[in-house]
């Protein structure tokens, strides 16, 4: 019932936001939506394991990812208010209506308990996020939006083929609703060849959303152009949607003979993601693109963690959660950086710590956090991944990953240091820094603080929920 109310309310709020006669009303609508999303997350925690509206279930993974979205909703809305404050009313309304729609569709995707419903909501997120990427109405925004829609649609079509192959594992006369529970019952007895093909299609298809090799390019472009609060969502909660699509199918087939094949595919995709991310980060010239490649690198690690198995399962989910908090705070900070430096080009950035100390502190703390340097909480899952590699005897993957992560750490730290302390290499940007209130960084410090706290203490409810999500996997 609660979910039905949430969906109806979201549709109404998105519509009202679009037609709102004033910015203050639109702001109120966005805040009401955030409150309803947080209420839904609380409801999901209380009713974990229950099914609503037949097609939605509050299981461990969905509740975790929904909670991350709920945690990010208010900061995203708040930074969105700042980003769009000089927009015309029409554009302001379109932005917030798109944002409400995007978060609603992501919620639907998280909670879906059948492949087809999940797929429909993933497709819907493409539509909503396209509106947001195109927000600035520039040529470059049009290009990014076009690429995003085109490649995502192709990817989604491929994922759909994977779902059709999933459908083929049913026998004639069955009622194939493709729910995860019914699929899990027949997957173990299905033809392994069909399972392998379905998995490959699903990985390639959903990797457009997860930002995993080979379909990663589209998210990189989208990140670099979208408004920073939207980039924060694309880079975290929307990538989590792609992860969930792959994770669901992986979970379904985990008890079948194709598990080693799936692990190999994920490790290969993960290592190649790390390789490409490291290469591009070393030559990055655009701050937001560098952060986008950092997300790509983290998704690669998540894929490797799943592929390695054992402790890797726990690490994958913990990394997904902590990465979402850390990366979103860095992307929120990009909104302030652009108002201070008027550029995202690395050569033109510099002296940020002097110009805006609060922002500089966020950048440095965010850098330490996202690179999983202690006391970052992300150190814990990354350490677990490496320990799982050692336990599993995956020495080659271990060595390659360590080398590539070293490049990533070098590339990112030198660039963030340059932005914070060095003088710009070229004087491309013009104009004085805007006045930016240091209080705008509070939400970023809170999120980063949560990630750092996770290094010392992981609350039992979190550990329990992650353990519940991975209970079906072989030990």
């Amino acid at each position: 019932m609660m979910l039905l109310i949430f969906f109806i309310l979201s549709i109404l709020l998105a519509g009202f936001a679009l037609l709102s006669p004033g910015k203050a009303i639109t702001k109120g609508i966005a805040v009401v939506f955030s409150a309803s999303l947080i209420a839904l997350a609380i409801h999901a925690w209380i009713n974990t394991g229950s099914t609503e509206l037949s097609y939605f279930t509050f299981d461990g993974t969905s509740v975790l990812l929904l909670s991350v979205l709920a945690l990010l909703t208010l900061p995203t809305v708040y930074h969105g208010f700042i980003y769009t404050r000089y927009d015309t009313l029409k554009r302001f309304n379109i932005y917030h209506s798109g944002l409400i729609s995007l978060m609603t569709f992501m919620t639907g995707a998280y909670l879906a308990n059948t492949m087809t419903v999940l797929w429909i909501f993933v497709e819907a997120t493409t539509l909503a996020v396209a509106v947001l990427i195109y927000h600035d109405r520039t040529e470059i925004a049009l290009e990014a939006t076009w690429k995003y829609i085109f490649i995502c649609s192709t990817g989604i079509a491929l994922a759909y083929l994977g779902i059709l192959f999933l459908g083929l594992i049913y026998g004639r006369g069955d009622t194939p609703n493709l729910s995860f529970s019914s699929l899990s019952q027949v997957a173990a007895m299905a033809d392994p060849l069909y399972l392998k093909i379905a998995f490959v299609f699903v990985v390639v298809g959903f990797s457009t959303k997860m930002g995993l090799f080979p379909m990663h390019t589209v998210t990189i472009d989208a990140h670099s152009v979208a408004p920073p609060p939207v980039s924060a969502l694309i880079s975290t909660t929307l990538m989590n949607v792609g992860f969930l699509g792959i994770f669901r199918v992986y979970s379904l087939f985990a008890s079948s003979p194709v598990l080693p094949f799936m692990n190999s595919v994920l490790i290969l995709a993960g290592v190649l993601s790390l390789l490409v991310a490291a290469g591009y980060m070393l030559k990055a010239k655009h701050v937001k693109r560098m952060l986008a490649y950092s997300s790509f690198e983290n998704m690669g690690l998540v894929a490797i963690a799943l592929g390695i198995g054992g402790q890797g399962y726990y690490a994958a989910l913990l990394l997904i959660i902590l990465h979402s908090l850390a990366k979103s705070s860095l992307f929120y900070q990009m909104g302030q950086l652009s108002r201070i430096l008027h550029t995202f080009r690395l050569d033109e950035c510099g002296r940020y710590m002097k110009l805006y100390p609060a922002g500089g502190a966020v950048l440095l703390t965010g850098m330490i956090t996202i690179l999983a340097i202690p006391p970052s909480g992300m150190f814990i899952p990354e350490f677990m991944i490496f320990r799982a590699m050692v336990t599993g005897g995956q020495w080659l993957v271990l060595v390659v990953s360590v080398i590539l992560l070293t490049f990533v750490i070098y590339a990112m730290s030198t660039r963030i240091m340059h932005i914070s302390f060095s003088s710009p290499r070229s004087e491309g940007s013009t104009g004085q820094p805007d006045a930016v209130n240091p209080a705008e960084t509070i939400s970023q410090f809170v999120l980063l603080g949560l990630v750092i706290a996770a290094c010392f203490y992981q609350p039992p409810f979190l550990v329990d929920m992650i353990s519940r999500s991975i209970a079906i996997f072989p030990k």
Partner: protein
Amino acid sequence: MVNYLIVTFAVTLIYFASAERLSTYVRLIALHGLLLCGIAVFELKEVNLVNLLFIIAETLFFKAMILPWLLGRIIGRSGVTRVHRQAVPGFYLLLFSIAGLLISVSLARILLNPFINTIYLAIALFTLYTGLLLIVTHQLIISHLIGFLVVENAVFLFSLAVGSEMPMLINIGILLDLFVGALILGFFGLKLKPHTNELTMLKD
């Protein structure tokens, strides 16, 4: 009868590889719509009437009429009539296409399944291959669009192959059609400059 339609569909795919004029592509896309409509009518005997009518309307009006009309408008705006000045030559594409057909037939035989017609599977795989080939080997945005529509037809054909058992899946495939048709072609297709390959502002 269905087999004749499917074989005709496969022939049009080979023609896709050798065609040079954009107007030919548009006609082929319209023909695909008609052929898919025929296949749906003959194949989906177990589907209820409302579902069948929905599928016929989708193929006949959307795939065979509206999409070609939108493509025609985009091409008309661009003033470009040929594609191969900015693509792999047609002769090589023809070779790739025939190789793709052989691979698809071999794959379909490997994937033999009692619930799916092998010819369907082979041609669906070949359609997917042709769509991706058009996207990869061509540089024009309009060619990418056409490639995507061919990929979509592959999905549709595949869903028809299992459609007697899963009508719901066909409807979802149709949702994809509507989504892409309305958004990509209707909005972005008309906003971009489709005669160029200038999508190069975003790079590292």
